[in-house]
């Protein structure tokens, strides 16, 4: 197979990974007030862990010079305990709500969005370079 747009395999993998990260962050924001999860406890904040994956089909088998792509290794639960707030409708009882800081989540979301944008810029540039190279013959 001819590869005309070289070097965008890693960017494509990064785009996929950043999308997963954005999905997890939006899940955190959506569940910021969820006091009953599937297990009956308040929702626990989650975050993604990225890892590099060798693209062995692109470079040599397992060599350090092979292009390294990123992939989501796992989605971890944050271990911070839920906040206890007073429940006015139920005097004397404390309500456990998830300890999710919406500002922190938004900052994370902006970071993920900008990383996505940077990888998109790489893809666009690779395409522009290929098209400019093709215009040599004109």
């Amino acid at each position: 197979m001819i590869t005309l747009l070289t070097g965008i395999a890693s960017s494509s993998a990064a785009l996929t990974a950043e999308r997963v990260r954005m999905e997890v962050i939006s899940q955190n924001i959506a569940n910021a007030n969820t006091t009953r999860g599937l297990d009956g406890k308040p929702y626990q904040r989650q975050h993604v862990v990225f890892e590099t994956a060798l693209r062995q089909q692109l470079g040599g088998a397992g060599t350090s010079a092979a292009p390294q792509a990123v992939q989501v290794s796992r989605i971890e639960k944050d271990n911070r305990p839920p906040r206890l707030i007073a429940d006015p409708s139920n005097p004397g009882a404390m309500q456990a709500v998830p300890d999710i800081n919406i500002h922190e989540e938004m900052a994370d979301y902006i970071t993920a969005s900008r990383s996505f944008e940077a990888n998109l810029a790489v893809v666009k540039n690779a395409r522009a370079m290929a098209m400019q190279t093709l215009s040599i013959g004109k």
Partner: protein
Amino acid sequence: MNPISAIRQFITPDTGSAALVKAMSDPAASGAVPFSELQKLGPTALQQPLSPSQPSGASFGNLLGQMVNEVGAKQAAAGDAVSGVLSGQNVSLHQAMIAMQEANVSFQLMVEVRNKLLESYQELMRMQI
């Protein structure tokens, strides 16, 4: 750095047309061999085969056909990716877009090769004999 500095080596004064005319009019200076010397070489030395040697590997036509097939395969892959996005399968939008762009670039490459081939053919047809 001047990008067209490499052109200067073609237009230095001592390789210009004036120097060439001078060298032709002065056989001793250019080291030209007299025709009597050439005749001693005999007929076999002068009759070099003019037909091009046969290529050992695949012909250019085969190569071109292979390229057209690959471009077609890329177009088909892009179509599959787009229909995967539209039918809600596990294909993300950027994968479909990248597949489409790859198909586009390879198609452009094929068009450029075809343009060059046609251009050289027309150049040959215009040649005065």
